[in-house]
């Protein structure tokens, strides 16, 4: 399995039928099934635009989080980040700050959160899983404190455009953002020195360190970027719903991390592609959109989300052990 960026033993004859292709086949099948069972509503503007928006705001975080996960760390605090950003935006808008300033402050807040996570993991040395689970609660708690638990209205021309604006009158702004970020992360991972460093750090931190790569810097910047992008997605969500709720983004970690792992990124790092994450995001977005159209009760969808996570990782582990047996 010679995947893009994989430092493993290459069996050249499998290079065409690699995992990303399989994922896109699954995606096509899902799309077909959903459009059949969900007809005629599925293809209507009323459904497609929210689905595209949802896909974009999940995909933006997923793309950047992939970079962090390939480096071997993880960030569970993205949901809390979104909640905090949403509440912060609403509160700042209420106090009269101009829209563009609020956006900048929100992104800076995201950077601060990302930096805090990064420091916890690189400087203090805490395990990233537990550190980010802890910070998730802190961020969300701060969000609750900011709005005193209520949902606050967040309407403003600039902020509204982020989620509900249309470029060239037909393309929703979120997907434009997603395409831009996707192109940037794809180029970074596959065609830049930084991307090579990320893969190196993920595969073998010790060897990378001995080769002169500043492992801590790579990880720290990964967390920082995650924080900023999570805030960006928080702004999109706030704009789409026009309110800042502290509950925004609750449970999102499950979906995002599932889609990244579905896309072929290993939990320990070192393997994974942005393209794969894209496929994973598409598949899960279509799946959850379909379930929502079919009016499935939210908590049952949660059952699906949990099962998908386990199945996805299980499939990955089984493939791993089969590959080892083959060698």
């Amino acid at each position, binding site marked *: 399995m010679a995947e893009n960026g994989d430092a493993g033993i290459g069996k050249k004859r499998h290079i065409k039928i690699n995992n990303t292709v399989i994922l896109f086949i699954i995606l096509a099948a899902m799309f077909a099934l959903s459009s059949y069972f969900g007809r005629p509503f599925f293809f209507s503007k009323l459904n497609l635009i929210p689905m595209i928006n949802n896909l974009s705001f999940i995909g933006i975080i997923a793309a950047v989080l992939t970079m962090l996960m390939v480096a071997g760390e993880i960030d569970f605090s993205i949901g809390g980040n979104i909640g905090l950003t949403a509440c912060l935006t609403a509160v700042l808008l209420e106090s009269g700050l101009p829209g563009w300033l609020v956006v900048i402050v929100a992104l800076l807040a995201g950077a601060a959160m990302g930096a805090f996570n990064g420091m916890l993991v690189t400087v203090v040395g805490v395990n990233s899983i537990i550190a980010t689970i802890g910070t998730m609660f802190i961020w969300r708690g701060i969000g609750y404190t900011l709005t005193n638990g209520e949902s606050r209205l967040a309407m403003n021309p600039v902020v509204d455009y982020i989620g509900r604006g249309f470029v060239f009158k037909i393309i929703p702004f979120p997907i434009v953002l997603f395409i831009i970020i996707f192109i940037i992360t794809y180029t970074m991972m596959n065609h830049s020195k930084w991307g090579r460093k990320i893969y190196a750090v993920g595969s073998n931190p010790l060897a990378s360190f001995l080769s002169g790569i500043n*492992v801590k810097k790579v990880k720290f910047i990964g967390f920082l970027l995650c924080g900023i992008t999570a805030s960006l997605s928080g702004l999109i969500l706030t704009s789409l719903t026009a309110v800042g709720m502290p509950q925004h983004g609750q449970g999102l970690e499950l979906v995002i991390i599932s889609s990244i792992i579905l896309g072929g990124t290993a*939990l320990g790092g070192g393997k994974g592609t942005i393209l794969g994450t894209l496929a994973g995001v598409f598949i899960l977005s279509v799946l959850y959109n379909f379930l929502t159209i079919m009016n499935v009760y939210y908590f049952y969808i949660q059952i699906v989300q949990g099962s998908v996570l386990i199945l996805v*990782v299980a499939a990955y582990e089984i493939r791993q052990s089969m590959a080892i047996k083959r060698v």
Partner: protein
Amino acid sequence: MEKGVKKYSQIMNFLRTPTPTLIGIYIAMMLLFSLASENFLVVQNIKGIFNSFAVYGIIAAGITIVMIGGGFDLSVGSTAGLAGIVSAVLIMDGIEIPTPYVFLIALAIGSLVGLINGLIITKVGINPIITTLGTLAIIRGVCYFWADLNPRIANVFVQNLGRIYLKNVFPITTVYIIVAFIILSLILKFTRFGRDLFTIGGNENLARLAGIPVDRVKIISYVISGFFSAIAGLLLISQLGSGRPEYGTGAELEVLTIVVLGGVVVGGGKGNFLGVFIALVIIQTISNGMVLIDVPVFLRMVVKGALLVLVIAIDAIRSRRHLLLY
């Protein structure tokens, strides 16, 4: 002469464990809160604190076992919720299955969840955190099957389970916790299972090479965790008086804080119940203290998260991980 030296080194070794620090922190906090609020040192309040140990303490018992073996169980809150709501439904007016059977069913549910967790983690080989994160979501969703029923606990025995005070002073729930901790401590110290658990936590590959049935021991630890989560679920519905699908949400956070503060290392291999007990007391006292000094509700959530981060940061520094170069 030799006996004196041995005693001295034993005492020094004990002082190096986290336990004395915890006792110190506790005394400091008691002083702080009694100064800050005149309602703190009242008998009624202290009794209330001790009764609030109930759910978290029992869950902590189970989760400590799992973590000593190197594992992790984030699904404890959901499992408690599931056992709780199923029990509440079964003793409801229309159904009224006899109480002993309901208890057995609840414990079976918890153990079953633990078994599933254990099997997925050992046989399929998925990371415990990811697995239990998935199970957490799945089981929480399952709890909502009964969301439209609204069972109230009319059964007196169940009501008393979590609420009686022995001799009107000592909450019975604290007795449960102490008994559970003592039994588990004995198991850890004197049985093969306990020693194996510590070995697996210390170095899993080494344990495997030494012939320890690693998979079996780990599965049993997850079953124990599920078992205790179910007990906690019963205590939850008893103390809250009804069965709701959202009970137990967020329990993982508090229990994790308690357990890590109590000296249980996240990678496994270290941990003792005395430390966990003192940590339980400390965290619950802080929760109670925050209410008494009128800390706004949502700020308490921030404090709880900050406590967890602080506690794990201290754990990381204690294990010298901050000195790693990469």
